[in-house]
């Protein structure tokens, strides 16, 4: 009969769990999915490494040789050297935190750097004011970036302003107020500030952009997955509808032609089966099938193929449940369904915190179900009251 091949077609995909996209992704980039954060983190991670390398290179390759060269010629060589060492320690500490994905303590470290700034300018003395031995002018701004990473850009601007003020104060105090000196100082401040600001702002912008793009991509993927699942559900449903209409039409045609007798129990049973199947199909209102309902439906289809008229009614949308809870809910029912005789009523009542699945079948002489019990969060109940056999599983969020 046509129904045999037809059911076989629908049974294949019916047993495969369908993907269930997260509802949250629909709200867009505002609540970016974890995938987007991962991409943004990767982009940010690259920028962190770049800034650490620049600061380290400047400190070791430019500042250190200049300090060593100038040596005792400076006003307070020990102060300049100590400042270099303190800055190196700050850099290592902040760098390690950044590489581990964290953020350094911006406030205290920034204060330390500003103190170092003033001390080194003073320690270098007038003679070395515009030389690389006064290494804070050129190199310290990169350390500002390290300690202020991912903080608001205005913090950086405030620090650079303090840095510039220190330099200007030194220029004025040492009396280097000739126009040439002043313009040189201005050029120094400008030249050493713009690049760090550009890097800082650029890295933040790139990270934000990466996050936005990844969020869009993730949302698009989620929509596509949902569409695919809905499409698959629709195709499955159409296949089943074709099959059901086929069997229903067949019975109706035979009845109309007088070939089938409505009084014949076999004919009535066929009519009952076709009607039950049509009802179940009509009751399927979910566009993206829930995994639990999907399993129960597959079990119902299977039982029906063995000639058992079965009603499956579900109320509410089950929450996303771990596989073992879904098993706990569905397995006792599928077992009871296999032993059912006469008819069966399968119901699901679902709320975010509770799911109750029940199977009721008429009492028969067959073997009894495994005893009532429950493992873990799913309670399992089996009862015979002389009229019906009643299997119920119930999960409550704890």
């Amino acid at each position: 009969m046509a129904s045999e091949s037809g059911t076989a077609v629908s049974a294949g995909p019916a047993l495969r769990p369908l993907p269930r996209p997260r509802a949250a992704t629909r709200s867009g980039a505002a609540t970016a999915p974890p995938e987007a954060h991962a991409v943004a983190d990767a982009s940010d991670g690259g920028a962190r490494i770049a800034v650490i390398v620049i600061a380290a290179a400047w400190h070791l390759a430019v500042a250190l040789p200049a300090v060593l060269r100038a040596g005792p010629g400076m006003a307070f060589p020990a102060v300049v050297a100590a400042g270099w060492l303190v800055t190196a320690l700050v850099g290592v500490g902040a760098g390690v935190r950044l590489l581990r994905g964290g953020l350094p303590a911006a406030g205290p470290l920034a204060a330390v750097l500003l103190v170092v700034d003033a001390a080194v300018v003073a320690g270098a003395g007038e003679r070395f004011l515009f030389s690389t031995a006064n290494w804070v002018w050129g190199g310290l701004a990169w350390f500002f970036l390290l300690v202020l990473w991912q903080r608001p850009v205005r913090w950086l601007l405030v620090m650079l302003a303090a840095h510039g003020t220190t330099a200007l104060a030194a220029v004025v105090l040492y009396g280097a107020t000739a126009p040439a000196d002043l313009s040189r100082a201005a050029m120094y401040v400008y030249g050493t500030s713009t690049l760090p600001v550009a890097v800082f702002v650029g890295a933040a912008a790139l990270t934000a952009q990466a996050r936005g793009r990844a969020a869009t991509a993730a949302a698009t993927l989620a929509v596509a997955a949902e569409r695919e699942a809905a499409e698959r559900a629709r195709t499955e449903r159409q296949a089943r509808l074709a099959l059901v209409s086929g069997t229903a039409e067949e019975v109706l045609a035979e009845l109309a032609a007088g070939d089938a007798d409505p009084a014949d129990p076999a004919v009535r049973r066929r009519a009952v089966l076709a009607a039950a199947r049509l009802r179940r199909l009509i009751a399927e209102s979910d566009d993206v099938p829930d995994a639990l309902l999907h399993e129960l439906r597959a079990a119902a289809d299977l039982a029906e193929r063995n000639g058992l008229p079965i009603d499956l009614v579900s109320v509410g949308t089950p929450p996303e449940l771990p596989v073992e809870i879904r098993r706990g809910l569905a397995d006792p029912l599928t077992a009871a369904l296999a032993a059912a005789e006469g008819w069966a009523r399968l119901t699901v009542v679902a709320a975010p915190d509770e799911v109750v699945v029940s199977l009721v079948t008429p009492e028969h002489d067959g073997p009894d179900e495994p005893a009532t019990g429950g493992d873990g969060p799913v309670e399992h109940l089996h009862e015979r009251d002389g009229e019906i056999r009643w299997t119920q599983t119930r999960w409550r969020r704890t």
Partner: protein
Amino acid sequence: MDADPLAADVNAGTPIGVAIVDDHPVVIDGVRAWLAREPRLRVLATGDDPDEVLRAAPDAEVVLLDLRLHGRMVLDKLAELSAAGRRVVVYSEHSDPTTMLAALDAGAVAFLAKHEGREHCVATVLAAASDRPYVPPALAGAMVGDARPDRPSLSDKEREALLLWFQSMSKASVARRMQISEHTVKQYVDRARIKYTRAGRPAATKAALLARAIEDGLVRPEDIGIYRSQASADRPTP
């Protein structure tokens, strides 16, 4: 099956007049045949237009209304009839919970899924005629699964009775399972239904259901959040 015996007593003399509105003649014939076997009921008029049917049978005590007429959901018509005091029993193949609850909100006395069969249909119409609730299993499922934020608050027993009634479709089995009498099961279920008269916009039919429930002692006004002044004349002082 679970019809309230009181419903019959009230109208022992003359049969209850019923109007059937459906756009499928075959359904009308089927329902007419169901009701014809019940001597307490008499079908007065049938048709596919509620206004025409009620013009033909202005005295109909219960209207059986198919919720989808000519491809359109007639919830607005249902609300209009209920507001005017018509006892409307909605019966529909659309037995999704949202539709059922919307029908109750609009003032339907009861909701019957078309596949629920003759016994439920007769019992529902009989109960409706005397402004008493009747909750067929599908409606019980919709009520117990109601997740709307403004849903009526049901007691644990009421919820359990609704759930088990929805699952088993047998009040005897529910009674055994809950270790109470069938009568008590029905009380829990009906009380839950009465709480729904407070949901949605007011309608004459809802007021009638509520008034009858209070009269029958099924609910107390304070159980469902109706304030009654202590100075009220008809309230015996303790």
